[in-house]
């Protein structure tokens, strides 16, 4: 199974600033995903990070707010731009791998916006 690391693990940011979250996988994977999980809630898919092309965003999420990079098959970044307190959440990356195309998740980045 894939092993995923994320940086930073947590951050406290000021309103109006931006934060870039990194996701590193220990093997090459085709599909990488970014999710948001608000406290006590389920996971909501933000976008699929595509290697060599633009990310595919889910309804309610736009590239200007959540730009994503995927320079190779082991790495991706998610930027949360022009942050507001409503962006306070846990952001998780995942990869689709394994026999059942199950997803393996990184440990998450806990973001607090003041």
């Amino acid at each position, binding site marked *: 199974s894939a092993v995923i690391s994320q940086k930073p693990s947590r951050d406290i940011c000021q309103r109006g600033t931006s934060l870039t979250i990194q996701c590193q996988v220990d093997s090459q994977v085709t599909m990488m995903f970014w999710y948001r999980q608000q406290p006590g809630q389920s996971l909501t898919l933000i976008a699929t990070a595509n290697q060599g092309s633009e990310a595919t965003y889910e309804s309610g999420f736009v590239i200007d707010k959540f730009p994503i990079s995927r320079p190779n098959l082991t790495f991706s970044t998610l930027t949360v731009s022009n942050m507001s307190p409503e962006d306070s959440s846990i952001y998780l990356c995942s990869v689709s791998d394994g026999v059942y195309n*199950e997803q393996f998740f990184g440990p998450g980045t806990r973001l607090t916006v003041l």
Partner: protein
Amino acid sequence: GQQVMQIPQYQHVQEGEDFTTYCNSSTTLSNIQWYKQRPGGHPVFLIQLVKSGEVKKQKRLTFQFGEAKKNSSLHITATQTTDVGTYFCAPNAGNMLTFGGGTRLMVKP
């Protein structure tokens, strides 16, 4: 994505009691996956169900997929404190998961 409803939202049980969470869809699902998220942790894959009426067991956990492939359940026999966490069902369509709302299980020792 395919929408699923999970019930109950929360469940408190005494250690040793059984626990069941249900996942319901208005549409037929091609398959469904289950994940467990411990408090402060990230979701971890438990199992995938594909066939109509399928039943799979993992020690004290029993997973079922309905005959119509519109519902699924996870049953834990004789809960232990290590079972604490949130259990999510998630239909998988084209490698894309749509997570249900989750059932948070709390176990009193």
